[in-house]
């Protein structure tokens, strides 16, 4: 079964890459453009991505949620769901391509991540784990697509893109709030405190406050589209640090479940 997991993983990575490179090629060289074809190739890659997750789950006997490899697999899965659902309605090729690029960077990181299969530890056997991470992935996915659209906005400066960035960031913020709330309730059952000022907790609060502040500035002080786009791209750094960085740079976190 492991062979299938690896096979589907590389198939989906190849197809994401192909859709992205082909998309940029026809866009920049002004060839006749077929959004539908790029979209369908991405959809096919998504199916293989889904199969990778199925096989991983069958092998490890749990939903892939442990360690960097599994988190990337699932995080990227939710990101691509947001991309596919969002751009099915909004047929905006450049934002779609930049968002897909960000997904490829994330998904590609799985190659370098530790893919050791681990059983589900007692600490992770909780209903709140799934609630917490589903909202985390939805939130981080929305923030990533918002950053992708922001890059496209800085190139094209089209007014509707500004509004799309706002919509995605607002959705991400609501999901982020739910992620923090669910995490806090889970932490109470697991460690006995709703909040421990743990580096991962603190960093997720930094992300939340930062996106909240940016949306606040957008609504009340009506900051311009360009500034807004730059801020959204910059804020993605905090999301990336929440996702990997804190565990990577700071050794002492209650959120490190996969080491002793």
């Amino acid at each position, binding site marked *: 079964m492991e062979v299938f997991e690896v096979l589907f993983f590389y198939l989906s990575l190849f197809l994401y890459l192909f859709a992205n490179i082909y998309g940029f090629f026809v866009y920049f060289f002004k060839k006749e453009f077929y959004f539908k074809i790029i979209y369908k190739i991405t959809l096919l890659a998504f199916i293989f991505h889904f199969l990778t997750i199925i096989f991983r789950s069958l092998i490890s006997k749990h939903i892939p949620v442990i360690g960097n490899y599994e988190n990337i697999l699932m995080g990227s899965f939710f990101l691509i769901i947001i991309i596919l659902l969002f751009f099915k309605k909004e047929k905006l090729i450049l934002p779609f391509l930049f968002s897909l690029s960000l997904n490829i960077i994330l998904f590609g990181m799985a190659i370098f991540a530790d893919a050791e299969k681990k059983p589900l530890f007692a600490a992770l056997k909780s209903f709140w784990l799934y609630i917490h991470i589903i909202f985390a992935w939805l939130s981080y996915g929305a923030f990533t697509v918002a950053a992708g659209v922001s890059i496209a906005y800085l190139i094209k400066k089209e007014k509707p893109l500004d509004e799309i960035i706002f919509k995605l960031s607002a959705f991400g913020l*609501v999901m982020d709030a739910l992620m923090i709330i669910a995490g806090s309730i889970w932490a109470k059952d697991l460690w006995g405190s709703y909040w421990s000022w743990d580096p991962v907790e603190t960093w997720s*609060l*930094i992300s939340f406050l930062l996106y909240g502040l940016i949306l606040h500035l957008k609504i009340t002080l009506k900051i311009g589209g360009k500034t807004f786009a730059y801020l959204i791209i910059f804020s993605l750094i905090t999301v990336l640090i929440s996702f990997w960085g804190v565990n990577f740079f700071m050794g002492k976190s209650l959120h490190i479940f996969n080491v002793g």
Partner: protein
Amino acid sequence: MKFYKNFYSLKFTALLIFLLIFFLFLNVLLPQERIVGKEKIKEIVKKNLFLKFLFYDLNLKDIPSSPLFLATLFLFYLQLIVFILRYFKLTLKRIKIKEPNFENWKFLKLKADMEAVRDFLKEKGWKEFKLKENNFYFVINELSPLGFLFFHISFLFYFLSGFLFYYTRSEIEFFLALNQTISLEDERWVSFKKKPRIREDLKGIKIYLNDLNFKLYKDQPLLFKTKIILWHNNKKIEGASEINKPFKYRDLKIYPIFKDDAYLIQIEDLKGFILEKSIIFSNCSRYINNSYEILGKIKGTIECKEAPYLNLSYFEKKEVVQLKEGIKINLGDLKVEILKKIPWVKFRAINEVGSNILIFGFILSFLGLFFRFLFPKMEIVITKSLIYYKADYFPSSLKEKILKFCEVEDGSF
């Protein structure tokens, strides 16, 4: 007045949020005393004068309790209260449906019949109001501005619950070997991490460890489930305490946090008369004291090498014995025998009030953000030739359909 205006300004709010982010950033980046310990902080500042300035002069060695962070938080809450009081009236005005003033409104040229647009909006659940000159005002999600108010009010609930946690929380840790009963007031087994300021609910509680299921994968527990019995005021409560599912009794929650082995030792005199049976906890996990006194005469300390060893001293006699089942030694006129290995569990018991208030705050926060951002208030005014509109954003499907009624030159909505 000028000070009040500046204090209440949105720019000052942004500055305060920015400052809070900055302090949180420092909380992650700077080594914190509660995580690395006092000694480590002392060691760090010896090498770095700048860190000495940050840790001791600015008191940033524990950001959540540092005066600078707390002062920023205080200003944030003060501004929040002023904001809520002012925004409360404003929100009530905003949710009232009234004739629009067209401030910050945009418009599109209408090509279709206005009746078609009206029918479409009514079908989608928009509320319609007739204006002067046969114009029509449409609104949907008019209660959405309440979302912001809810979100801001939720922070007051966080403050209140935090205050209650701080003043009512008691946190103790205790060790319990299998089939052992202890009182939560017995200082031999119990250590107070945080004493309650108001409540004393733990008095008179006794706990018995009835069963233990424990499985490890490398260093992580795969299964850690205990069955305990609690007695309080002549009441007997049986239940389980496992990771993610603490044992609950009133406001008291008991969490299993560590497991190791203890050894039951028996002391006999030379005639075979049993003088004492005592449980010795292996302390290689550094969680418990490593010195014992048995019968008031035998002193024991634990030494951790590749396995735990017990150093015994009895008057002039000294013996070192490995903590292992079946080991027997003579110690002067006494015989010491290690009878069996017994697993023990370290538990944490937390007793606090304020969870319900916090959960209510969570619900308010979520509802506030959900309705404010995902169901924004949208307004449209239809005249014979123009459509005026105002919202943070319009859903794409709605936009697409409305644009079909309009003459759109630049594609913007």
